[in-house]
């Protein structure tokens, strides 16, 4: 009984972690950007969904679309206002571009967080689940929404896989993550590749944010926690590896769930953190990382 509970519980939350992490790692893999505005992007999506749902009472699907759109908009804003100017800047030495992008996205994330808190307070926002009600799974009463979240996450990830492996655009993305210079030599415009990856990122982060709002709720105060969590999962799985991130998301999700059930909810995050440290020490490129 407990085992089934843990299994079901862990699955949904891991799927949610996974979606966010995949976006994060894809961004790094293809464009080398560690986007510390990640959490804030998810929060914007969540809050937008809440605002739209409030104004059009009873249409969570419309709210979900609006939220995802907001995620994409935020991603674009991050790219055009912060990341691209730094990447193109001539006064930043090449070796330090990464650090400037990090600091820049960090600051931008704080600005977004504060703006959201200013207009909407830091109270968590929730959106009504896309499908309400509960059902029994192996004797465990589970909200249908949780299952829906897992289904949506995996469908999106599946679509992403199809995109990367079966479409031309996707293959270009893959190539860019391996060797950007070779790509330009072959005549591809990197700027279009980056645009594509930021769009995909925006969609992933947006969906993740909206789902978070329906499941656990999201508040502006959580932005940095969401970023740190995605960051840890991605490093655990291997920076740049999508499969790695998914795997790591499930490892972390289940570790946390097991800790919460079997030891105590107060220590929930500790084993996962310790695991990240151990992996970074013994196997820095992550569980499934390349190179």
């Amino acid at each position: 009984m407990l085992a089934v509970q843990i299994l079901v519980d862990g699955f949904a939350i891991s799927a949610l972690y996974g979606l966010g992490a995949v976006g994060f790692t894809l961004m790094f893999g293809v464009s080398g950007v560690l986007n510390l505005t990640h959490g804030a992007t998810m929060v914007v999506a969540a809050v937008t969904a809440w605002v739209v749902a409030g104004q059009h009472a009873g249409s969570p699907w419309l709210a979900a679309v609006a939220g995802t759109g907001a995620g994409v908009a935020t991603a674009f804003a991050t790219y055009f206002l912060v990341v691209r100017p730094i990447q193109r800047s001539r006064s930043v030495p090449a070796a330090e571009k990464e650090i400037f992008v990090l600091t820049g996205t960090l600051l931008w994330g704080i600005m977004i967080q504060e703006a959201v808190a200013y207009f909407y307070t830091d109270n968590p926002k929730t959106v009504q689940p896309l499908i309400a009600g509960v059902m029994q799974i192996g004797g465990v009463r589970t909200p249908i929404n949780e299952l829906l979240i897992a289904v949506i996450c995996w469908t999106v990830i599946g679509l992403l896989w199809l995109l990367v492996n079966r479409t031309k655009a996707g293959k270009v993305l893959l190539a860019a993550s391996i060797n950007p210079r070779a790509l330009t030599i072959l005549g591809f415009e990197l700027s279009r590749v980056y645009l594509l990856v930021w769009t995909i990122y925006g969609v992933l982060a947006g969906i993740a944010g909206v789902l978070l709002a329906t499941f656990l709720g999201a508040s502006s105060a959580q932005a940095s926690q969401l970023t740190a969590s995605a960051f840890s999962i991605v490093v655990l799985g291997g920076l740049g590896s999508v499969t790695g991130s998914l795997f790591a998301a499930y490892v972390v999700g289940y570790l946390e769930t097991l800790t919460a059930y079997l030891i105590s909810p107060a220590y929930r995050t500790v084993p996962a953190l310790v695991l990240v440290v151990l992996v970074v020490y013994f196997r820095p490129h992550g569980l499934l990382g390349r190179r």
Partner: protein
Amino acid sequence: MRALLSSRPVWMALVVLAVLLTLPLWASAYILGVLTIACYFGVFAMSWDLLFGFANEVNFGPTFLIGTGAYTAGLLNAHGVPMWACLIAGAAGALVGGVVLAVPALRLTGPYFGLTTLVAVLLLQQFIIIFAGTTGGEIGLTMNDILSMDATTNYWYALAFMAVSGAILLTLSRSPVGLILQASGQDRIGASALGFNVVKHKLAAFCVSAVFSGLAGAMLVFYLGTASVGTVVDVAVGVQVIIAAVLGGRRTIVGAAIGAIFLILAGELLRPLGQLSTFVVSAVALIVILFFVDGLMGLLGRRREES
């Protein structure tokens, strides 16, 4: 020595110091209080810059070192240990913490190093909260002693501390050790090829950074009268330290202190804005790093050329 005195950052530092020295003559207790905190932040930022600017290691968790120093001092004081001993213990505690962190962390580069430092802060925070019975957890620890009740005296302590730390850090950064650090930061392989033990030097930089951060953290909590997660451990505090150093101008040491003072003063000046003050300060910092890459120091004059 002459080279030292003729460099821009040093002149800037002396000018700023001169202004700060005159403050008690005309500024109110409130302003002195703000600048006292700014001085301690200045040391946090300078220690960070030594590590980042020179060893090129982005430490996402300066508050791991600061917090370890602060809480070591605080916990000992709560058990009756006299203040001066607590301060020394705080620095020592941070040093130990720094070594424990550095040994695994320095084997890594780039984002992995950054992540380890970040995770260290998160773990420290969890540790403090879980053992709230001893550490005071979320409420914080009330100190038995404080540096002084008088604003002016506190100010002198802070200013002197910042000046001395700054002098030491600046000298270090320009010493042969500092140059090696810079070299290994820019070109790790080249430096090793030249025979320098890169890891050993980075470890040394880490230790120096740790000692100053820890000591400053300990002094800060003796000034405030409380040690709490929100003031010396939280990731948000670490972010402010990083912003201060980058805003001031990386690799100048002096820039970090000036950046910290600017940041804290700006935050206070914008206090009437209420909720939006953090937004505005972050926006200004973002604009600076987008358009004035060398920070405030860059604005004030040409930086020394890198070799």
